[in-house]
């Protein structure tokens, strides 16, 4: 059982060359599905081992920590690991037919290989305890996601991938430079070692510079306002399953890096406060929440609408992270989990119903309530979760967000959060009105396959379940937040 952390990274990597040799798309699909379910089970085992606050270290090659490379699994990493692998499994399970229809037949096996590599990258980012390895894994996931995005049917998908490539590379350079400056000062790349050394020295100005570089780089990678422009294009034009997968994972991994590096490792809050950067970031996030919700209301393209909504939700998460009380950290962690489930569910419904459409306009939804009664009721429940209607998981996270911000020094921010939540109602209502109260045009409904239905059903059920029983999200988030706050107050 001590080999669990490395197996989560290595098993998909082992499947990559095997899939390359097999090439037959059905077998490759089966292998991918098997390996992602095995991974999910392994993550559950790992979660069970760390759930009491234990931290598991894994030394690669048996070399001891500051010199050797080490993996680290604690509650924070397992929380995100569970999210990533669960999303990957659900999307692969429901995505087979969509991928076959959408991707060029020659490239299908490469598509699954890139998916596996992307998952390797995400798991690696989350599990590593070495900041340079974090950068390498970030590049692995980014490079494979450029390929995944470029495979869309829309003619804009190549351009979207290219734009993401350019912007992502700039972000990667920022991150690498930031890591280099930190390495020059502290002389170590191991995160645990780094956090100890960071406490001992007086922080020079150049380290503040490197923190700035890292924040900018991560903000680009995880599409935090105002660096979110690539995300909208990417969500609008890439293959629809990939949108569902990325909506729940890639931006959340960025937030994980933010939490891990700035709160857990570098304890960067004091230097940020000293230069009043906190107020600056809060202000930007507020503008982001307001603007992107307004843009979302304006959109006629459903995918773009949901993409802007994602940017707004990310702004909430950043606000809660930057307010940084114990409760607001809990709130942001809960919101990450709940929002991932809701957004992936919404995009998955759209992916299943509009497989062959290049673009999904809001008018395309009209009259679908009668054609796909189950799918559309799932869609409505999920979008209620997006607004934060009681009995859905969205309500729990919005409740924690607003109360925790109210109790902090920045209580007035909660007004904006409430206002933008109400504004969410406008664009969600636009969709619901089209679904149920518009006249149907003569489109014929294709039957929804069982395994696709299962994927959507699980996500919808989770949205409802996490709105009633919050032991998973709230309980674990409180433990994580306790752990991090203990480190900060040291």
């Amino acid at each position, binding site marked *: 059982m001590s080999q669990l952390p*490395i197996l989560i990274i290595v098993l998909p990597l082992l499947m990559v*060359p*095997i899939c*390359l040799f097999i090439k037959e798309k059905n077998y490759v699909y089966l292998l991918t599905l098997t390996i992602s379910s095995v991974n999910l089970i392994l993550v559950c085992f790992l979660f069970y081992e760390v759930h009491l606050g234990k931290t598991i270290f894994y*030394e*690669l*090659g*048996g070399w001891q920590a500051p010199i050797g490379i080490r993996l680290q699994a604690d509650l924070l990493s397992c929380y995100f690991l569970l999210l990533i692998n669960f999303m990957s499994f659900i999307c692969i399970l429901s995505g087979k037919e969509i991928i076959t229809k959408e991707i060029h037949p020659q490239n299908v096996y490469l598509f699954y290989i890139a998916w596996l590599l992307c998952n390797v990258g995400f798991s690696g980012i989350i599990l590593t305890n070495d900041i340079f390895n974090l950068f390498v894994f970030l590049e692995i996931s980014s490079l494979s996601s450029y390929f995944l995005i470029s495979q869309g049917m829309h003619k804009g998908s190549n351009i979207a991938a290219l734009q993401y490539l350019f912007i992502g590379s700039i972000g990667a350079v920022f991150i690498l430079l930031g890591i280099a400056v930190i390495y020059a000062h502290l002389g170590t790349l191991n995160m645990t070692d780094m956090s100890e050394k960071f406490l001992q020295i007086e922080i020079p100005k150049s380290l503040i510079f490197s923190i700035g570089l890292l924040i900018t780089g991560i903000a680009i990678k995880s599409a935090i306002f105002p660096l979110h422009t690539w995300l909208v294009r990417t969500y609008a034009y890439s293959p629809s399953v990939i949108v569902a997968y990325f909506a729940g994972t890639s931006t959340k991994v960025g937030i994980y890096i933010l939490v891990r590096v700035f709160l857990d490792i570098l304890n960067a809050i004091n230097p940020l406060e000293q230069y009043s950067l906190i107020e600056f970031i809060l202000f930007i996030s507020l503008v982001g929440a307001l603007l992107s919700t307004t843009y979302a209301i304006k959109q006629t393209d459903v995918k773009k609408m949901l993409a802007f909504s994602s940017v707004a939700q990310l702004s909430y998460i950043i606000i809660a992270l930057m307010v940084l009380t114990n409760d607001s950290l809990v709130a942001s962690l809960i919101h990450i989990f709940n929002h991932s489930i809701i957004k992936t569910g919404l995009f998955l419904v759209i992916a299943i119903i509009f497989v062959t459409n290049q673009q999904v306009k809001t008018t395309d939804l009209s009259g679908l309530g009668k054609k796909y009664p189950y799918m559309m009721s799932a869609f409505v429940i999920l979008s209620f979760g997006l607004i934060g209607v009681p009995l859905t998981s969205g309500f729990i996270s919005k409740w924690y967000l607003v109360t925790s911000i109210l109790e902090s020094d920045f209580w007035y921010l909660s007004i904006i959060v409430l206002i933008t939540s109400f504004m969410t109602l406008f664009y969600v209502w636009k969709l619901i009105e089209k679904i149920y109260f518009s006249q149907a045009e003569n489109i014929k409904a294709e039957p929804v396959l069982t395994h696709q239905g299962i994927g959507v059903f699980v996500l919808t059920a989770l949205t409802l379940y996490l709105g009633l029983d919050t032991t998973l999200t709230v309980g674990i988030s409180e433990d994580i937040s306790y752990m991090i706050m203990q480190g900060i107050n040291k």
Partner: protein
Amino acid sequence: MKDYIILRIITKLTIPLILLFGLYVQFHGDYSAGGGFQAGVILASGFILYNIIFGIDVGKAVLSQRMSKILMGIGVLLFVGVGIMGIILGGNFLEYNSFSFDSTSGQMIGIFLIEIGVGLTVGNVMILVFYAFNNEES
């Protein structure tokens, strides 16, 4: 570009040197600067130079695109396989101590195989990128 005599002669002269240097970097990587990554690029650059001067068809007769893809996969498989071998022999991932009768020679064997895996993958990726720019159909 076969018609340019200077290019042809210089290429013929330099390619053995490039390949030799590539092999040196590959196998001396465990003692000095270098290793599979750099060696793969150097070896591939020699091969690509040959392709540019003598035409891509000649190059493809030596190493087809399909073969290159397979070699790329074998490289990754070798790397991961050696890593997992460490787990099977009772250590951690990439722990080579138990590969041989004593830990030093075990380390030697391990790093040797790993570097070959890295070199194969990197070199063939470079060649495949080169092929991809030349091919319209695939």
